[in-house]
């Protein structure tokens, strides 16, 4: 795709055109997933609620594109974007969203716990700030096991009000752990403006622990990716932890059912972000300006992704629910080595 685009536009070949287009495609995939999820909710086909990631795509993609499969992330209740960006496929995601057996979590997690564990996603957490300890512990484990894995802890501005963050930042800084705290500041803590829940500056809070803190435009996938690549490389060398505050925007309400929200957020504000700061539109524009892709190329990606998403939804709708005997399965996992050792010892 990249080579073809370059040939067609006649632009000089770019070494990372492939990376750019993959990032573009991943952002489009997140948006397409969320559009389908929203439709599933509105047409009452999806059990429960879901929290849309639309608008924040550059954060998940810019960061996850700087990670390997061995690197870990922890995700949030607004986690579909992280899940896609860390390598998940649509079919198993939509199956999870609809509570089907072929979902990543066999239908036991649903929207708020969706994760493709095989790509280093340690799970989406529905307790705001609940994964800050998990991410920091994964970084501690990486260090103890002698690996160079890095963990990124995604959380929203609302989670900065949780005490757990300050406990684990303290330990991460004391022990120089390879963890990056990525705060997606979308301006709203559920139904409340961030300015009303956060005193002082968020970066200053990390800096108080001696943690290097950065602010970046979370709508600019290249800026996010460039910064993350640098920080990941440094974290691998033991220079972590780091904090990034990513300025971004949530296009939908707190969840899909939060439709009449003018009491806390003006329509004009939403329109402005969508029309002038959309991460996909702006990156697409840049790609065409740079000659990495033509508008037709981008439209083709959009159409292809949309068709993929629709096919995955159809697949998930037709897929089977888990059988009833799975209801008490996975409460505990087996311990085969322990059981073998127990069998091997004389009766007590």
């Amino acid at each position, binding site marked *: 795709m990249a080579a073809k685009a370059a040939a067609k536009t006649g632009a000089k070949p770019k070494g990372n055109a492939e990376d750019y287009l993959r990032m573009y495609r991943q952002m489009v995939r997140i948006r397409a997933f969320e559009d389908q999820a929203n439709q599933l909710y509105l047409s009452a086909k999806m059990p429960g609620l879901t929290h849309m990631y639309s608008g924040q795509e550059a954060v998940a993609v810019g960061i996850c594109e700087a990670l390997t499969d061995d690197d*870990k992330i*922890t995700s949030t209740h607004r986690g579909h974007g992280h899940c896609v960006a860390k390598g998940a496929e649509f079919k198993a995601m939509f199956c999870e969203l609809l509570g089907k057996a072929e*979902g*990543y*979590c*066999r*239908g*036991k*997690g649903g929207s708020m*716990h969706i*994760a493709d*564990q*095989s790509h280093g996603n*340690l*799970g989406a*957490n529905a*307790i705001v700030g*609940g*994964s*800050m*300890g*998990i*991410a*920091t*512990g*994964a*970084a*501690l*484990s*990486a260090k*103890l*096991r002698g690996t160079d*894995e890095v*963990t990124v802890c995604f959380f929203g501005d609302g989670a900065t009000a949780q*005490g*757990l963050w300050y*406990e*684990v930042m*303290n*330990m991460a800084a*004391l022990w120089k752990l390879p963890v990056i705290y990525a705060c997606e500041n979308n301006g709203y803590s559920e139904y409340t403006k961030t300015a009303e829940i956060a005193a002082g500056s968020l970066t200053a809070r990390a800096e108080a622990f001696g943690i290097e803190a950065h602010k970046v435009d979370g709508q600019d996938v290249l800026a996010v990716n460039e910064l993350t690549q640098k920080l990941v490389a440094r974290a691998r060398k033991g220079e972590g932890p780091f904090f990034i505050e990513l300025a971004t925007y949530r296009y939908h309400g707190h969840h899909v059912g939060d439709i009449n929200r003018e009491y806390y957020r003006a329509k004009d504000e939403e329109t402005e972000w969508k029309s002038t700061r959309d991460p996909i539109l702006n990156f697409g524009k840049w790609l065409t300006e740079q000659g990495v892709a033509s508008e037709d190329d981008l439209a083709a990606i959009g159409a292809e992704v949309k068709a993929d998403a629709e096919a995955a939804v159809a697949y998930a709708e037709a897929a089977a629910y888990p059988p009833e005997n799975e209801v008490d*399965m*996975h*409460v*505990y*996992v*087996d*311990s085969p*080595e*322990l059981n073998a*050792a*127990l069998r091997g*010892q004389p009766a*007590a």
Partner: protein
Amino acid sequence: MREITLSKAVNEAIAEEMRRDPNVFLIGEDVAEAGTPFKVLAGLVDEFGTERVIDTPISEPGFVGMAVGAALTGSRPIVDLMFGDFIFLVMDQLCNQAAKACYMSGGKLNVPMVLRTNLGATRRSAAQHSQSLHALVAHIPGLKVAMPSSAYEAKGLMKTAIRDNNPVVIFEDKLMYQDKAPVPEEEFLITFGKANIKREGTDITLIATSSMVQVAEKAADLLAKDGISAEVIDPRTIVPLDEETILNSVRKTSRAIVIDEGHQSYGITGEIASRITEKAFYHLDAPVLRMGAMDVPVPFSPALEDLTVPTPEGVADRARAAVRGELFHAA
């Protein structure tokens, strides 16, 4: 057989498992040079270093959450929670995170961590350092709960807990750390969910956990003088619970008292008594009795504190009443 203290038994179990598996590490407040306020972990840092015996700030939710993350990614942490009372501080990390990661991921993630903490009143430590809160975590599916009743159990259950691929909470009775019991030199594990019949009897079954096993045994001695034969059962783990051994005993004796140091209301005693009533009702000759700690915050004054926990005399009194058939019309 040699006798060692419960404290030494825990220390040995952890040292053996840390030697066996490099992924096992210890984390908690003052676990390294201090070896905890109870000195249970003394000396481990000398052998394993501060990389694997990690002193933390006083941040219980933080380090329990970190243990969950470490357990999800190939390590096998043992968390030291200095007092069982602090479990309230870590409930989200233990009950929403550790307990549910496996289920919520459809079995793709698991959390092989041990949280060792303690229980037990009568140490004159007042209401925030004396509670026995094991029922709180036993209520949450996804956690296993072990309650050693002697140095032997403390060692075997700890070793098994460390090798279990699920989160296990171990409650040691902090008044028993210096109690000695025979513990084999050679390696052994204790199977979870397998009760120990401490003493056989025919007239009444005393099911007791942790230090209440000693109370039950002393009560059985008192009852023997009255010609009443009591069977004493130590479940060893309350999750999983060896229902079968308990039911078989009650089918034989027709009477039961459940003794536990947690508050009596909504606790372990009620749970076990209820299972007996549901599944061995036809065999019962007396109502199944519960004896837990009084439903009051633990008082400081020795004059009051000692009233709050079951005693051998108290258990023997209730057992006599049950055997004599005096409970059918109890108010």
